[in-house]
């Protein structure tokens, strides 16, 4: 019985039938392995998934530091998404406003549910204007809002008229879609429709990029920005780590989009390509080798000899600064195995960093990914749209005749595509090996089984798994928040990661798990007179 079969063995017929397509064990010579993803979670299985609101407010729009994000609904959801992701930001120079330490909620009560909450929301906005006078307000809806018929878009429009600021209403009720993914999409739509393209702050440098799907967890984005700046490349804005409404407005003036987290932001990458002609490049700054490769691909895209030379100089310099540390950590970690369940590309990204350290990833998966995150974008035409995805609006954008400026003609782009992959992503599976287990929408039971059967040396996922994994005697690191550490990306981040993994695996506490009296023989006697 292989590991996959062991995982599925516990399930009764109905659950088995559902889960078997979400669990994959790669086999030698397996052409085009396929996995089911982005379908409804089975009730009662203890999924790791969150909701639509979490994807919209918690992930995508929450990190915007100059935006007053008001959670419209009862108090819990606002509270639970208050400062819980470690999307770090520093207030912009000259701008005093940084709303990240705040949670704003309309704190709806029973009477608001019965009689409607629009008036309360409008008054809350009035209070927010008096207190904080933000340049932009975003309203994120929780479950009851859609049901009681509050029209947050209309409130947003009235807010714009009344105060002359930008206001966006998101109908990101928790029950929409099947996971956080629906909320990412809704947030992407709002940013595309109302924010991107409304600014005119042109980048100052010759080469400029946006980093999409980088939420600056533990400062990852800053490390990436540092490296890019050294190479002479300007980062116009991140989406949305350490980002602001003010900066997002001019995102369309960057020449190239770099995509880190494919799942949460690919909609914007695609729409910006159509509307503004901006190409996107799937990059990975997690891992030393991956960072070097991404930098070289960016240089290849811009096709500029001086830039390429500069990139090589930076790579050489950065590598010489970290190689001693990395060699040491590799000497401690080589041959160890890992399981990873992270965000919407990161289970893929971290495999390259682990490889740098001589470690093998034997389990990987996602909570909320779609098939293209696993199998690559080539699979998209085969994905059948179901009722849940149809409920999430897909917006169509058209070429903006004034602002469209493609960096390359179609022929030039085709030629370049022979060299680097542009506007596409090959997915995680192609970088994994025979025997590896891939699980989509994993749950608590499967986590326990994987720990028991595959026995990885370390497990990277979130806090909901951390303590049970540790109690099962396996090291664990939170790969959504880094256990308050970071950054883990780029060159310096790789060293931090090596240090943290080494510290976790070699912590003395593990050696005391078995008490001494368990080693002592139960019978003590003498043999042969000795």
């Amino acid at each position, binding site marked *: 019985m292989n590991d996959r079969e062991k995982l599925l063995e516990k399930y*009764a017929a109905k659950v088995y039938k559902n889960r078997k397509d979400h669990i994959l064990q790669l086999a030698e010579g397996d052409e085009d392995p396929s996995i089911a993803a982005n379908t409804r979670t089975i*009730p009662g299985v203890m999924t790791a998934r969150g909701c639509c609101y979490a994807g919209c407010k918690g992930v995508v729009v929450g990190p915007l530091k100059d935006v007053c994000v008001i959670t419209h609904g009862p108090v819990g959801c606002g509270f639970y998404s208050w400062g819980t992701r470690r999307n770090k930001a520093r207030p912009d120079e000259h701008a005093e406003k940084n709303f990240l330490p*705040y949670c704003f909620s309309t704190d709806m009560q029973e009477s608001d549910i019965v009689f409607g909450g629009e008036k309360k929301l409008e008054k809350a906005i009035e*209070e927010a204007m008096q207190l904080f006078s933000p340049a932009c307000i975003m309203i994120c809806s929780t*479950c*009851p809002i859609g049901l009681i018929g509050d029209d947050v878009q209309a409130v947003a429009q009235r807010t714009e008229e009344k105060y002359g600021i930008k206001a966006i209403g998101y109908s990101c009720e928790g029950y929409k879609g099947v996971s956080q993914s629906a909320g990412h999409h809704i947030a992407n739509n709002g940013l595309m429709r109302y924010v991107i393209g409304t600014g005119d702050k042109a980048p100052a440098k010759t080469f400029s990029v946006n980093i999409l799907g980088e939420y600056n967890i533990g400062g990852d984005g800053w490390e990436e920005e540092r490296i890019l700046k050294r190479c002479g490349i300007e980062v116009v804005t991140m989406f949305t780590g350490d980002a602001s409404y003010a900066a997002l407005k001019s995102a369309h003036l960057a020449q190239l989009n770099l995509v880190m987290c494919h799942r949460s932001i690919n909609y914007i990458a695609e729409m910006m390509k159509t509307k503004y002609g901006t190409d996107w490049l799937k990059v990975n700054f997690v891992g030393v080798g991956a960072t070097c490769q991404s930098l070289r691909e960016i240089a290849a895209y811009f096709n500029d000899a001086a830039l390429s030379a500069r990139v090589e100089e930076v790579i050489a310099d950065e590598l010489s600064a970290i190689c001693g540390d990395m060699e040491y950590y590799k000497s401690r970690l080589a041959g160890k195995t890992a399981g990873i369940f992270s965000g919407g590309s990161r289970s893929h990204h971290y495999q390259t960093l682990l490889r740098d350290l001589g470690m093998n990833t034997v389990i990987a998966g996602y909570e909320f990914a779609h098939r293209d995150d696993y199998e690559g974008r080539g699979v998209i035409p085969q994905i059948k749209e179901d009722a849940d995805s149809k409920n999430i609006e897909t917006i169509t954008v058209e070429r903006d005749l004034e602002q469209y400026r493609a960096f390359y003609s179609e022929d030039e782009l085709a030629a370049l595509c022979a060299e680097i992959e542009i506007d596409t992503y090959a997915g995680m599976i192609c970088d994994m090996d025979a025997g590896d287990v891939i699980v989509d929408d994993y749950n608590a039971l499967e986590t*326990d089984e994987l720990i028991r059967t595959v026995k990885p040396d370390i497990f990277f996922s979130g*806090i909901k798994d951390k303590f049970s994994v540790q109690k099962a005697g396996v090291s664990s690191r939170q790969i959504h928040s880094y256990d308050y550490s970071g950054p883990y990306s780029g060159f310096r981040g790789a060293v931090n990661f090596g240090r943290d993994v080494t510290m976790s695996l070699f912590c003395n506490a593990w050696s005391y798990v078995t008490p001494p009296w368990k080693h002592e023989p139960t019978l003590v006697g003498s043999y042969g007179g000795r």
Partner: protein
Amino acid sequence: MSENLVNLNVNPCKMCMPMGAATALYGIRGCMSILHGSQGCATYIRRHMATHFNEPIDIASSSLTEQGTVFGGEANLLKGISNLIKLYRPEVIGVCTTCLAETIGEDVGAIIGKFHEQNPGLDVKIIRVASPGYGGTQNEGFFAALRAVAGQVEPDREPNGKINIVTPMVSPADMRWLKAFLGGMGLDAIFLPDLSDNLDGVTEKTYQRLKTGGTSLGEISKMAGAKLTVEFSEHAKPDESPAVFLHETYGVPFVRLPLPMGVRGMDSFVEVLRRHGGTVSHDLIKERGRYLDAMVDGHKYCAKARAAVFGDPDFVTAAVRLCCENGIVPVIAATGSVCPTLKAAVREEMDACAEISFVENTRILEDCDFDAIEKYCAELGVNLLIGSSDSRRISRKLGIPLIRCAFPIHDHVGGQRVRTLGFEGSLNILDQAANAMLDRTEARFRGDLYDRFYKGDAAFGEEGIG
């Protein structure tokens, strides 16, 4: 005029009902809970509890989607309960509602009835808890779950001479103390709930998802035959109170006491137990003496403290009294709950304490947020925060030390071990208060003293003595 903005809650000093309900159910043996709603509720609550307790937290969800909200969530909940049983084999299941389930008007009782019909002979007790997110805070959710458990078990009215102990949310370490304390007084008690093991586990050879600690339903059914209920809540409304329920339904006499913090909190608790057959040991008398000794040792430093105390109403009430007993002036008593009884419980005492130290203004805030607390901290010269770690932003911004002793603690480890009850727990708070004041004095004495008395004094001329 309201103390808060009316419509915009800025930095909430409260969470929602399902959070409290799920926490309370962790104190029932063999119990797992499922939230009927979208899966984010369960995920958010698991995440927040895990961070505070540093323990695995398992709460299932019926994972309602748009279809479920339109056509009703019955099918999802039935599947959810069935899967939970098959996969994790709980003996008890708590079904808690959420905003979503309540807004679409789910009849959870009927769905559970249907489940039993479809699955006859299953040995699982299913308890329903109405916990809409808009219905109150985690405190009300906690009591709603306790009340539901007490009301939905089969009662065993046979007199058993036991004492029921009903607590609001207290830490597992405090719960362990409470259990040992009752045992030390020679009393047999039933604890509703008992979070001591399930939310503060050990490292074991094999990890078990289904927790083995907590009070069993068998024990809980005996609450109907107990000789007394002690409920540590002055603020739970009668219809939320398990003590009132047990009294009205089964005639079990009850007393409602403040949480056993500080001298008076402990004395009144000990006195009740003594009257019901408890023995006061030499050790206990010694411990009380030691506590008083420590109070006297610390009072001169504590007297400098101007504290803001915030959290669940019963914690706030007990902590305010603890402060007053040792000269810490509680200038702000605040709760995020709607709690009209808080003022009456602490007003007089706060005023008296403030008067001694020439403090003119104090505030009692109910239904308030941290924005209001921050405003009054600045206005009233607060120099000590006592409560949850959600005030860490105020602490940083205004430079005020924070004693983390209430749920949730998200920026430090050890939430599960925080001690606040009994003499030892009280002293944990008092010592931290005294030391916070000493640290402040140590760092700022010369500056404060000089600026206040000598700076610009004519005797020293313009330049002063420095």
